[in-house]
């Protein structure tokens, strides 16, 4: 084998491994979200993750990938539908030395994660049909547009926006859609009292939440380190290092913040701290030094705990705190490179300029802020229009009775925990019928 062939083989293997890790994050989301919600919705919440990734797979293959990476203009890609490859169709990804199928598979993982994040805002009260419709539209009209702006040769990429693995492209997008959804859906029954004070609706299984968080942590090595899409110079190892440091700092910062703010070392808060830190370091992982990764992770972990409490007090029922963990942290991470991008790493990645603390001036900081605002405004506007139209036509929310019964039984006809919830299994007088 020639060195070029060896490189192709190794890079391909690495990208495949990255794709598997990122797609595996769907399992993490399923556990995290199911653990953080109630037993009566657990089958639905976990199961819809498979539905979500399936919808994303088909829609991203048909249209999403072309709009994201196809050659076009500054706003959208206009070539490469159904992965049809022509001369220069996917120039935006020509830097990666792997077959197109792998590029697609890897990028599909990202689109799937973004959509999974959005569902956080829909949890425990949205109709199943909404998942089909909004899932398709998000994968075709929302995610790919911002993806194109930053990674597909669009205007933000041209400005030199630094978003290595998608703090904005993947996480902020999903989170803004989640926020719009949770506002339009309204709070879950029983979440707020008449005087707007919030009640706790605890998740049914903290262990699921923790395991889900850990699966995501591991998956993030594919997400960030995999985004090098090459093994040649070993840079992926460095990206993995900053990613891990940030996650660790986020966990410690979140549990300490929780202890300071509410006097309790809250476990779900710690898990969310890990995720917030991972979200934040996603943009910065290839641009910042290890010490800065610790700072970014700690700030994200601490701030997002505070914002979780704050938004809840302001009457927003975000069941798994998707907007704080992915949106606020996404913005923090994206903007962080405006401060901390080091000249050494900017040279390696070849994107943008050094940050403020290295004497790079305000240029990169402004670019990052513009990127965050541009993406947030677009996603908010399109999500609002789509979800508002759905609300006025088919309706977004199940009936109060269905919500109280739980989505497992009302949307799917069977419980995730039948022995605990299904009267047929609970009532001994009907048990014999079941056994027959």
């Amino acid at each position: 084998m020639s060195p070029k062939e060896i490189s192709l083989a190794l890079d391909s293997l690495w990208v495949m491994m990255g794709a598997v890790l990122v797609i595996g994050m769907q399992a993490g989301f399923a556990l995290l979200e199911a653990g953080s919600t109630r037993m009566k919705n657990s089958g639905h919440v976990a199961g819809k993750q498979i539905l979500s990734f399936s919808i994303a797979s088909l829609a991203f293959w048909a249209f999403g990938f072309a709009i994201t990476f196809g050659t076009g203009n500054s706003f959208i890609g206009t070539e490469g539908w159904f992965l049809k490859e022509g001369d220069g169709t996917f120039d935006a990804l020509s830097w990666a030395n792997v077959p197109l199928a792998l590029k697609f598979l890897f990028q599909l993982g990202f689109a799937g994660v973004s959509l999974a994040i959005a569902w956080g805002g829909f949890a425990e009260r949205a109709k199943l049909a909404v998942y089909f419709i909004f899932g398709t539209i998000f994968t075709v009209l929302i995610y790919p547009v911002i993806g194109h702006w930053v990674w597909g040769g669009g205007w933000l990429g041209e400005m030199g926006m630094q978003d290595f693995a998608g703090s904005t492209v993947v996480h902020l997008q999903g989170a803004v859609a989640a926020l719009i959804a949770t506002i339009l859906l309204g709070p879950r029954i029983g979440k707020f009292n008449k005087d707007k004070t919030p009640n706790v609706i605890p998740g049914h299984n903290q262990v699921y939440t923790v395991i889900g968080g850990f699966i995501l942590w591991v998956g993030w090595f594919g997400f960030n380190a995999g985004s090098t899409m090459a093994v040649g110079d070993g840079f992926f190892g460095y990206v993995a290092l900053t990613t891990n440091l940030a996650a660790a700092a986020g966990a410690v910062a979140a549990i300490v913040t929780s202890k300071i703010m509410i006097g309790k070392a809250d476990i779900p808060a710690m898990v969310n701290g890990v995720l917030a830190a991972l979200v934040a370091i996603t943009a910065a992982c290839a641009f910042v030094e290890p010490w800065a990764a610790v700072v970014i992770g700690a700030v994200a972990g601490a701030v997002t705990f505070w914002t979780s409490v704050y938004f809840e007090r302001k009457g927003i029922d975000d069941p798994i705190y998707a907007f704080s963990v992915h949106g606020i942290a996404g913005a923090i991470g994206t903007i962080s490179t405006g401060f901390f991008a080091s000249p050494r790493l900017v040279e390696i990645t070849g994107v943008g300029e050094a940050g403020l603390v290295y004497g790079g001036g305000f240029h990169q900081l402004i670019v990052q802020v513009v990127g965050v605002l541009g993406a947030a405004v677009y996603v908010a506007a399109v999500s609002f229009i789509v979800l508002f139209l759905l609300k006025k036509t088919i309706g977004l929310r199940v009936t109060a009775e269905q919500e109280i019964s739980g989505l497992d039984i009302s949307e799917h006809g069977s419980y995730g925990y039948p022995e605990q919830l299904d009267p047929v299994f609970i009532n001994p007088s009907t048990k014999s019928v079941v056994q027959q």
Partner: protein
Amino acid sequence: MRLLKDLIQQINQAKTVEELGRFHQELAYQLRGVTERERIPSLSYVLSDVHDAIMKQAIALAEKAARRASVGRPPARWCWYAMGSIGRGEPTVWTDQDHGILFECAAEAEEECYIFIRYLAEIGTKYLYEMGYPYCTGNVMATNRRWSQSLRHWQEQIATYIDHHFPDDIRFLLIAMDMRPIYGASELVVEGKRFLIDRIHHHSLLLKRIGEHVIFPRVPLGWFGNFQLERWGPYSGCLHLKYSGYVQLVNALKFLACQGNIAAMRTRERLEEISAQLLLPVELAEATREAFFTYAYFRLKYSLAIDNNEYVSVHILNRHERTQLKQAMKISRRLQRLVMRRAGD
């Protein structure tokens, strides 16, 4: 203040439960607008005296009714005592009932005497309720036999709490430490309390257990001096006044009183004797005094609010009040740490 002293005179002349109920209302009315922090030390003395006067008259009326009914046999000596905030001499305007009765009777007549005491307790409790003192949700009332017994049985019961290791024992002992005579043969309660404190004082393991009990709940003040507010529920964003250092301070003083074998009745008296025995550093004793009156101020002020409850939203506290409350909370935390060290010795 003068008006409150006049009120006591009027209460002493009262002849009916309705009259006494009106005086209780009058107390709330007169206190509106006079709850400045500076006036709290003298005000809380008088306030305690007003409640004592109402209760004395109420029990006197109850005694008359019980004697008229000729139920059981009146004991030779008996004493109605208060516990809780009235017992500690630090009540607000609206406070629930915490009380009991100790009596002395010939051994063979004890059950007969208890029948009278039980009847007296029922009438007294009912009267107090009608005067605006809610029933105790924890059933710490004279109608509960745990708190109404002959002195001899009561001492046996205390000894049981001391010698056994049931989880509720410490709680009962902490409640009993607040007992203070209100009406009748006060020497019975003085003797009972002396017995209680003396036994705990000489039982180092028990003292250690009480210390471990006293260090919880934690004072809801973060490392940066931030209030740790309720996160969820109807009082989200609020502080529970009772648990924001007040209970912690009161309980820490109870522990120190046991350590010093101090059977003083009211919290203020406890604190003075603790200071005199140098069980607290001079500076901390002074700060504790200030913190105690700060809590008295907040408790009194917010007990007069229309939606009277134990919670206060920090948003309605002005800057000065926040600082005062945080300062008091820091002192309570220091006291808890001191107790933790002493209990560990």
